[in-house]
């Protein structure tokens, strides 16, 4: 009776193919991750001689060939927070409309399509738009305002998408219960839907921050500048109608435009930018994991 469960040649072939497929797909996944790990390690090793507290708070010296990145760091913080102040309310309200008010008709399908397209517009086209609309038409000039508004429109889809996801994860029965005791649509949203989705919305906002901090093309022609003289360690060096330096732009400048830069300087700038973006993203992920473990329904 033993032969009943013995492998036939066909089963053996099947099993071999199975493990081959598993191995190939596993290697493909690893091939995607391995270069990342190798590259990040390489960047950190190259940047090590320069990375220090002094590098963060010092200003660029000797025509940006030495020194630190303080003005660029502060400029990026300016741009990120002003764009956040515009994009967060707009995006959250838009997501509330799409998720809570909109019915499935042609008009709202167009809105959906517009959100998808807004996410797909190349960053350099956003830059052209910012230049045409904010710098020239609205007469804001090359300024922090123009650059932040351009960034805000560019990152709007990030907030809309993740807020919608957060709102959609609140069970429909919660809303129905609230409507049944006589609450209006807005009262339901305010007292039931938003409190139950606030962490998800926060995740979206954090992702917007990381996206805005890393973008270069949209701010290149609307408000970011190669160099601006700023005192070492000043907390609020820029006015909103001035141009500013930005970390991403600074990395582009010192790695392509300035000859004779000390070798580890661009590596250190890249590591700071990469580290900041990954840290922000990691915190969004951590928030989501905590949220998921706490979910009651």
């Amino acid at each position, binding site marked *: 009776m033993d032969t009943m469960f013995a492998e036939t040649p066909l089963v053996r072939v099947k099993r071999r193919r199975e493990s081959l497929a598993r191995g190939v797909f596993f290697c493909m996944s690893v091939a995607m991750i391995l270069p990342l790990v190798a590259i990040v390690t390489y960047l950190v090793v190259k940047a090590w001689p320069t990375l220090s507290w002094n590098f963060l708070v010092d200003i660029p010296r000797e025509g940006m060939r030495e020194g630190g990145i303080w003005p660029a760091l502060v400029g990026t913080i300016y741009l990120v927070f002003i764009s956040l102040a515009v994009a967060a309310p707009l995006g959250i309200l838009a997501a509330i409309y799409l998720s809570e008010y909109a019915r499935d008709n042609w008009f709202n399908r167009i809105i959906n399509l*517009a959100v998808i*397209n807004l996410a797909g517009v190349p960053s350099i086209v956003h830059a052209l738009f910012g230049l*045409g609309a904010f710098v020239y038409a609205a007469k804001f000039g090359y300024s922090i305002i123009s650059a932040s508004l351009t960034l805000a429109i560019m990152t709007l889809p990030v907030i809309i998408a993740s807020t919608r996801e957060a709102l959609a994860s609140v069970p429909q029965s919660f809303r129905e219960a609230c409507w049944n005791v006589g609450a209006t649509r807005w009262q339901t949203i305010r007292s039931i839907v938003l409190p139950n989705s606030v962490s998800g919305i926060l995740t979206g906002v954090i992702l917007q921050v990381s996206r805005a901090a890393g973008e270069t093309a949209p701010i290149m022609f609307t408000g970011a500048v190669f160099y601006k003289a700023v005192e070492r360690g000043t907390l609020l060096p820029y006015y909103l109608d001035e141009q500013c330096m930005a970390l991403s732009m600074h*990395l582009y400048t010192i790695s392509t435009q300035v000859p004779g830069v000390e070798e580890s300087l661009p590596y250190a700038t890249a590591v700071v930018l990469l580290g900041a973006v990954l840290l922000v993203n990691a915190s969004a992920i951590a928030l989501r994991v905590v949220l998921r473990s706490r979910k009651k329904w």
Partner: protein
Amino acid sequence: MDTQPIPERAPVVRPRRSPWAVRGEWLLELIIRFCGISAVLFVLAIFFFVFREAFPVLGREGFSLTQFLFSSEWYPTSATHVRYGTWALTVGSFSVTALAMIIAVPFGLGAAIFVSEFCGPRLREVLKIVIELLAAIPSVVWGFIGLTVMSKLIVDLTGAPVGVNLLNGGLILALMSVPIIVSIGEDALKAVPDSYREAGLALGATRWQLVYRVLLPAAKNGLLAAVLLGVGRAVGETMAVLMATGHAVHIPLGVLDSVRTLTANIAAELGEAPAGSDHYRVLFLTGVLLFSITFVVNLTADLVIRGIRRK
């Protein structure tokens, strides 16, 4: 007969909201509606403002749209022989994108299949987090990696005279678009009902047979959409190709030629073109061209995804 007086009813007191609360709510809903349509307004505004800057050049003498689209002569600053032909740039954009997709599509779809079908829940969580972090790396950092690490590797391994070329840009773009392909492809595979898997396994199929015979045909639209979104990202990418592909405006003959793309061309020349000049307006026209290309790609991806939902 005396009539009994009708007993007076106590007036019903219903709690009422103050008129201000009602009006406030009406106003707030109006604002929400307005924000809802803002995305449409922004897309229209982007097209309008970019086109408005480009428009005057269309009627200019010596400028023809066919030359703009199909001539490969790009001499914007020449004193005597000014030509605005973007064909070489378009070919540059598409060759970099095609090379990136040749590398990224098999790896992206393979990783999506692994994440969705072959690995355990713990490993899946880890891989998804890594993919998300990979997608978050700013394009200027990718460009910097192309300029330094990748170009050195290419020079060492192939003996090419310069490391910033089509191959470099393609590799960088592939690394950048893999995360999108993986995450959307994984969504598409997850959307296939579990009953399909159960039916396949009940018939004695191995996982690989299940993937090959059941899941890939069932999820093919979603996977196609994933590839299209990857293409959209690669065509529109600016900083990475600006830094990694070199700067020669010509039609590439091999993967070690340097090329320039539509996006990189705008980024490289907009700073030098005086506002209002023909050169400046032609760059905006290139923007309109790019906007149209990505619009079509995204629209197709959306239609493909919508096709799945309807089923």
